[in-house]
């Protein structure tokens, strides 16, 4: 059996580990256009601020490929999948055959057309190690930085650039920060916190026109800069799958074994795919590292012949900015319980149809996974003491039977 994997991040590593749970012998070839040992993408901001060494950027040990008997082809782009011939074409024209193929191609920065952007010499995206290295090369002490995008990537870049004494302005078309994971109240608390570190926000507007060192905004303001970080959004890399005849909506569509709809012996995982969000019943792109790894691990087992399903996918994020932590999961449509000190701590629990569907914890995030598990396993709030859960996540809120099963014997495959 010969497995070919396109990509070398979390979903690809999950695939390798999944395959090796089942098949210790088959040949595995990993092809990546990046010329690196597998590294953790979310760590680029930590590296930029000097909190992580280049050595510790590695997502797996140095000998990971050797130990798992994986052939690597780094710095090589796959240009085409030929499903009839069961080969992939790489950029030098050579073809590599596969019995089972994994597309773990990830996503790329989305840069909307912006007037005059070509005049800006120092402009960067912030998604890959190379892009972080380029930012580090360019940034000077006290540099004026314009960050376009007040989402996870833009604000992680801001956190890192604070270590260079950068004078930062963040703009976003949305009227609040982190709208993908926070509600309005939590956004406001986090914005104040980040502002207290010297970052300026201009929200509800966009760049009308760039000049060499300034941006004229649609609200009439002008922002001067030495460099620009473009963090508007990301788009899944779906082209290879689409051209080969796979089903693509916003992301690549797979079944719950991670097999690509419309293609045989081709699987996909990670940021290039859609998942079924069980809190809304909607197919969506859950571009999250844990999701990528777990999809990959399920795919790998299926590729190697062991039937496995990826169920219970939900949006979930654990992230901090300038020392203030957030853990969120699920969706926020339903009845909300909120509690806050207005400064740092915020808690929101959302229930619907007698189940916890989502939560936001900011500041005190201890034991948040107990909430996550309620969502993932559709535990009825009638089966637990929800008043105790409002107070804090705790096992004592569950019935004794549930607790005993979980704690006294709960070593099974429960996540």
């Amino acid at each position, binding site marked *: 059996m010969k497995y070919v994997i396109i990509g070398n991040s979390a979903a690809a590593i999950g695939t390798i580990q999944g395959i090796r749970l089942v098949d210790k012998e088959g040949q595995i070839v990993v092809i990546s256009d990046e010329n690196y040992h597998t590294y953790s993408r979310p760590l680029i901001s930590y590296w930029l601020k000097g909190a992580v060494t280049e050595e510790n950027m590695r997502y797996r040990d140095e000998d990971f490929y050797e130990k798992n008997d994986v052939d690597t082809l780094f710095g090589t782009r796959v240009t085409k999948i030929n499903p009839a011939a069961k080969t992939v074409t790489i950029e030098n024209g050579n073809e590599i055959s596969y019995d089972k193929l994994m597309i773990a191609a990830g996503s790329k920065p989305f840069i909307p057309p912006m007037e005059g952007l070509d005049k800006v010499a120092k402009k960067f995206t912030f998604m890959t190690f190379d892009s972080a290295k380029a930012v580090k090369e360019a940034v000077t002490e006290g540099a004026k930085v314009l960050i376009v995008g007040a989402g996870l990537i833009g604000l992680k870049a801001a956190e890192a650039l604070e270590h260079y004494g950068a004078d930062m302005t963040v703009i976003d078309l949305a009227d609040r920060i982190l709208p993908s994971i926070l509600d309005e109240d939590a956004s406001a608390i986090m914005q104040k916190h980040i502002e207290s570190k010297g970052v300026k926000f201009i929200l509800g507007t966009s760049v009308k026109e760039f000049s060499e060192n300034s941006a004229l905004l649609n609200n009439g303001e002008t922002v001067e800069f030495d460099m620009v970080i473009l963090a508007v959004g990301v788009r899944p890399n779906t082209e290879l799958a689409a051209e080969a005849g796979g089903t693509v909506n916003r992301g690549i569509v797979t079944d719950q074994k991670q097999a690509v709809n419309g293609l045989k012996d081709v699987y996909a995982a990670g940021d290039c795919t859609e998942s079924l969000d069980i809190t809304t019943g909607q197919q969506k792109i859950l571009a999250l590292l844990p999701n990528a790894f777990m999809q990959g691990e399920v795919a790998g087992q299926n590729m190697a012949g062991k039937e496995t399903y990826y169920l219970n996918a939900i949006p979930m994020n654990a992230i901090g900015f300038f020392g203030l932590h957030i853990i969120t999961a699920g969706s926020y449509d339903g009845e909300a319980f909120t509690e806050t000190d207005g400064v740092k701590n915020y808690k929101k629990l959302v229930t619907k149809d007698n189940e916890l569907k989502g939560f936001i914890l900011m500041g005190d995030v201890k034991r948040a996974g107990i909430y996550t598990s309620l969502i993932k396993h559709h535990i009825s709030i009638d089966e637990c003491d929800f008043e105790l859960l409002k107070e804090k996540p705790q096992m004592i809120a569950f019935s004794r039977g549930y607790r005993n099963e979980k704690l006294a014997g709960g070593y099974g495959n*429960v996540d």
Partner: protein
Amino acid sequence: MKRVYVNEDRCLGCHLCEYYCAFANSGESDMAKTFKLDKNPVPRITVEELDGVSFAVQCRQCTAHPCVKGCITGALSFDDGIIRIDDSRCVGCYTCVLSCPYGCIVIDEKNGGKTITKCELCTRNAAGEPACVSGCINGAIVFEERGED
């Protein structure tokens, strides 16, 4: 595989397990001094109690280990039935805190939450065997083989 099991009926809620855990993992040699000197050692076991019910919870070393699977840096690993943390590779993102269904990943307050810590069954400290078990005066926490895996 021997594991730690809790017995609610025998737990008095005395919190000694928390003290023994924190002490065993503090690297100090005198228990009284460890706590008196306000070094604030962090226990990796938590006693929950309410209205006469109490029990201790720590990492179940579960075979699903969503904390390991979700770890963004590769700092968490699962070997020989134990989930381990390499704190030199932990950046304190708390994705494991988000993932653990038992609430057993502990934020290491001692270093300001820069990393997490967790029960490793005392395999990497001087105790050798789980200190919570040997320190429990009432047999409410046991370390035994139940043949589940």
